[in-house]
């Protein structure tokens, strides 16, 4: 039986060479280059994708380890015809410059909202238990795995906060 990974709802066969990372599989085999390779060592977050609802660095896992998994990439979050609320907020708040870290930032933030909804604490949380308040500091800590060398951080946080407010109301 061919092993495959579901990417944004479409099945893609897993390549034969076990060395192929999930990231290279997405960019090369699946032809989805929205997911970026910035460091290939889990140090920049540009390759962040959502696997079975959880955000991970796709560069630090093998495609072969994801048989049957369901992956959402930036292409699955929104399209040019129908961008997600976060994608629109990033545009409005200029939450990027060169754009290379942007898909990772957006995938990361998309998954972060789920984590916040589950009240998972972070290093910035005053309390480990109970409801997490979505402060700037919480967002900044939770997004720290996504480097942006252009220095768009302030605008990225503004975009995320705008969507958080939207969701809250």
């Amino acid at each position, binding site marked *: 039986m061919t092993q495959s990974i579901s990417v944004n709802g479409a099945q893609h066969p897993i390549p034969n060479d*076990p060395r192929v990372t999930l990231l290279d599989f997405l960019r090369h085999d699946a032809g989805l280059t929205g997911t970026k390779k910035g460091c290939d*060592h889990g140090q920049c977050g540009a390759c962040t994708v959502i696997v079975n609802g959880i*955000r991970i*660095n796709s560069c630090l*896992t093998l495609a072969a380890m994801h048989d049957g998994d369901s992956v959402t990439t930036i292409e699955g979050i929104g399209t040019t015809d129908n961008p997600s609320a976060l994608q629109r907020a990033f545009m409005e708040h200029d939450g990027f410059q060169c754009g290379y870290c942007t898909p990772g930032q957006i995938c990361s933030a998309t998954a972060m909202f789920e984590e916040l909804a589950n009240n998972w604490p972070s290093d910035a949380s005053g309390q*480990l*238990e109970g409801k997490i308040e979505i402060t700037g500091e919480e967002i900044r*800590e939770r997004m*720290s*795995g996504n480097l942006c060398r252009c220095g768009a951080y302030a605008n990225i946080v503004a975009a995320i906060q705008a969507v958080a407010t939207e969701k809250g109301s």
Partner: protein
Amino acid sequence: MRPFQYNRARSLADASGIISDKGALAIAGGTNLLDLMKLQVEIPEQLADINHLGMAEIADTEDGGLRIGALATNTAAAVHPRVRSDYPVLARAILAGATQQLRNKATTGGNLCQRTRCFYFTNVDQPCNKREPGSGCGAIDGIAKLHAVLGTSDQCIATYPGDMAVAMSALGAVVHIAHEDGEERTVPVADFHCLPGDTPWRENVLEPGEIITAVSLPAKVAGTQIYRKVRERSSYAFALVSIAAIVEIKNGLFSRADLAFGGLAHKPWHDPRIADVLIGQVPSEKLFDEAADILLSGAQGFGENDFKIPLTRRTLHAVLAQAVEQAA
């Protein structure tokens, strides 16, 4: 990355069988192993993918403790209700490490086996006794800011870089290890990692074919739990020094002082003499200094990392002062 054979292990015995071969390694989260395989620091011929062995459960133990399956992700451990309520030092330590993305993938067992960040270890074109026995230590006369000040040897001054194990060490946690023959043994986290000595390549007590199955935490103890990590960036940086502390003060005297230190040695550093100094005493700056004196009596810097010695002393002061304040 060298070519390797990928096997999805069907059972613990299967996995154990595979990795008892020379040149075979187990892969769980893979966040450290694949990083090192890309650099050819790790060059396994076979990988046993142990992700499907069902060891991700986190469950209460009969003695009131908690057993964290080896495959429970760092996130799963940190957000588990009991970890948050009864072992906050562990939740805090895990949350202080890496990033959400990495914690979502990294596992409890894998994190215990995390290898050093020494620049010379990760660069295969530089000498490193840990990676290539006998090639020398690049760090000793090189760039050693991150390196150890306690328990070093003339072979290696690398540090264990993790946070989770530091908290586990302070908590008195125990590692459960399965052997190929099906036997299980347990080792306290405090004894799981080795000092470099003359065998810097040996980082922990795992024997060929052995797999970590779980870490168990003893029942909750009274007292304040603190994890303090000093780092150059406000997030996503390895510790310059970190302290895990479980401290109780009764009637104005220290009645418990379980401390472990990260960033100082080849292993989470645990020195039982610190508790001996503190327990039964009235907290004071002078007492904190005595504890620091004991801790750092054998400390030796290598130039660039000399600062870790005074930094550890100061951080210890901060942590103990915080514990006293919280206890009040």
